């Protein structure tokens, strides 16, 4: 019994750590979509953030500088999407895919020299006060700063979105640009800020992955986490509070995948590796039926991009 509880808690905290990069992207993308813009380029922004963060951490020796550089890299790349979509009126899907590929290419090109480098990590809660907490201390120990920052972002974002004037206008922009404009607010300002915030969060997610979680840089290391996050935004119903369970779904299935492999389950590791993608996808499909009837909290402005075929 005790063994079982320990295993479960280990799995849960492993899930939390593995879910953090995805959670950050889900939060950022949910905010972007709340303003009526969808950005599929988050995957590319994440990669560029991961590469930049790792490179800066490696060169300067300061992982925190790396995290900050990653955030700026994410914002910079998201501005390509902003210019294409808001400035040139380009199709959001096409522009997002372009940003995705651009981010992948740039990070692969500039990241090559840093493959295999060693960097200092951000550290974790081991040997701090939490080690003294009975029972839970051993599980809280491996929690790293990026996990805490991302968790704190949830209440901060929801207070901003649901409890401030700016957040209200942000939401109304996502519901209807026309109405927002008629009320005397410029929707483009809010969408620009929303895309930039999505860029910041995905850049940060890249750093959480490369600088913190793995302390390593490999080309294409995000492995579709950014795109999974776009899907999880729907599961989370564009609500920052639901983003946590949605991202944990990914984290838990990834942790489960590793656990199953370590137990030596007789299934091909390639098949097992699809678990973190299959499980969120299944939940998305299951929850989508219910979503369609109620609208599911989807910002009405997205319906142009998101309309189902029938």
């Amino acid at each position: 019994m005790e063994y079982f509880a320990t295993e479960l808690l280990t799995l849960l905290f492993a899930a939390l750590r593995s879910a953090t990069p995805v959670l950050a992207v889900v939060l950022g993308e949910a905010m972007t979509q709340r303003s009526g813009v969808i950005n599929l380029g988050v995957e590319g922004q994440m990669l560029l953030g991961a590469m930049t963060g790792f490179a800066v951490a490696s060169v300067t020796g300061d992982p925190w500088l790396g995290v900050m550089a990653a955030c700026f890299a994410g914002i910079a790349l998201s501005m390509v999407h902003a210019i294409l979509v808001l400035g040139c009126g380009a199709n959001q899907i096409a522009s997002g895919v372009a940003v995705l590929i651009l981010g992948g290419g740039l990070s692969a090109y500039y990241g090559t020299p840093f493959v295999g480098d060693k960097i200092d990590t951000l550290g974790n809660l081991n040997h701090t006060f939490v080690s003294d907490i009975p029972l839970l201390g051993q599980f809280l120990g491996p929690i790293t700063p990026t996990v805490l920052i991302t968790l704190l972002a949830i209440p901060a974002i929801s207070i901003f979105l649901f409890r401030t004037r700016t957040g209200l206008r942000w939401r109304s922009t996502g519901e209807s640009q026309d109405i927002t404009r008629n009320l005397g607010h410029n929707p483009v300002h809010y969408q620009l800020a929303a895309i930039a915030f999505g860029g910041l969060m995905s850049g940060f997610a890249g750093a959480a992955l490369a600088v913190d979680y793995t302390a390593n840089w490999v080309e294409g290391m995000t492995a579709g986490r950014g795109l999974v996050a776009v899907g999880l935004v729907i599961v989370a119903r564009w609500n920052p509070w639901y983003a946590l369970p949605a991202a944990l779904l990914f984290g838990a299935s990834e942790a489960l995948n590793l656990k199953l492999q370590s137990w030596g389950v007789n299934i091909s590791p390639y098949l097992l590796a699809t678990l973190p993608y299959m499980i969120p996808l299944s939940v998305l499909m299951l929850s989508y039926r219910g979503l369609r009837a109620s609208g599911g909290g989807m910002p009405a402005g997205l319906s142009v991009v998101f309309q189902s075929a029938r």
Partner: protein
Amino acid sequence: MNIQLYNITKRFGDVTANDGISLDIRAGEVVALLGENGAGKSTLMKMLFGLYPPDGGAILINDRETTIESPQKAMSLGIGMVFQQFNLVPALSVLDNLLLAYPKSPFWTFRRLFRTSPRKAVLTYLQELAPGLAPDTLVRDLSVGQRQLLELVKVLNLDAKVLILDEPTSVLPPQEAERLWGLIRKLAEAGRSVVLITHKMQDVMACAHRVVVMRAGRMVQTLDRKQCTESSLVSLMMGDSNQRSAIEVTPREAFANRPPRISIRDLHARHGAQSVENIRLDIAPGEILGVAGVSGNGQHLLADALVGLTPLARGEVIIDGYLLQSASRPPSTSGRVSYIPEQPAVNAVAADLSLTTNVALSHFRHLSFFPAWAPEEQLTRNIIQRYQVRPDNPALAAGQLSGGNLQKLVVGRELEGDKDLIVAAYPTMGLDAGAAHDIYQALFAKANEGAAVLWISEDLDDLMSYAHRIAVLQGGRISGIFDPRECDRLDIGRAMTGEHQPARTQRPPEQKPADPRVRAAS
């Protein structure tokens, strides 16, 4: 605040929308701007609200000439306008919508701040006008009347001294319109001025102090309401067009004892959140069945299900003894059935194709593999001529025509040839009176030839004058079927809002006392 419009002129291209109009708006007075669609009423008021610059003339506010270049300027001067199309975000709450429009809205929008602080000013007018309306209600759950009230509160929150209401009663069921009239009178007594843009006599008679009649961009006359009667206003409003030929409707005897041409049996259909349930209707050949109801109560879905654009969940539609639609097979369209959908400019034409092609598309199954275009073009020319579609070139792409002209083209196309069933959804919406008259004449002539007509409209007056029976849709169900000779507008209004029990009989049952909750909520 006194406003004088002096010699205002506005042209759009060759069309003179307003021709030298002068008008006084005084404090504490309700001015009705009366005229048909296209008479220039809205244009005039949009200039006062800063949406268009006038081409000539001047606007004087408290005897000082003022340029109003934007709606923001108009609002800062204390002029507010409530449009026919509401500027409300359905997914947000009442309070959020008020805050979005509030000029000095607080940064923190925590709900509890409003109970204690002076910031509750946002809610003052709401509590005054609609005390039963909870600020946390989502706007999408409100009735049309409540939404309109909310728009009014938004304008009052801007500290507006002059309120312009654009056709406010056109979307309201009759009893809510009466409530609005009372509200308008109250606002005027409190010292505000109200400009009421309308084409309805009831609006004028109920609450106006002064009537300004407009026709074809000109001001015909200004009258004190006490001096005028409904009939004198009608003749002023219509002018010489009053001598239009009467619209002929099939006499009831023609189909009194004939079997129904269309039988709708126990029809159920569902699309997204919309549904229609338990629809049972028979329409005799030559009969015009009007369908009334507040928009969004299933009219669209019923029409789509009848003509075969949406599958039926249950039930069947029988035409002359043959099965037309049924739940057991996929929906199909038929050449014997015509459909004039709502917003034909969007739903019934392919914008990039020529007018001729668009007309031919309605019977594309009968076109040969290499279509003969000459007869199609001749047919298109006939429709263009009969319904006065402008510009009259059949080779133009449909997208180059205005919505009103496309509407006339679609009506012409759909009424072409022999039809058993014609489903017409708002066929005259937004058209000027002359064009609407022509469309009614053509539509009802088809009924006279033996077609069954299902006519969805939001204009109760038109329904009461031309339809043989009026079915009311409420929440996807038929909440009453009325004989327009034997009921009044309020009976239908009660059925529209669901205050009336469904009745199979022609006569509505005894009037029951109105639900106090409903009253309090709006």
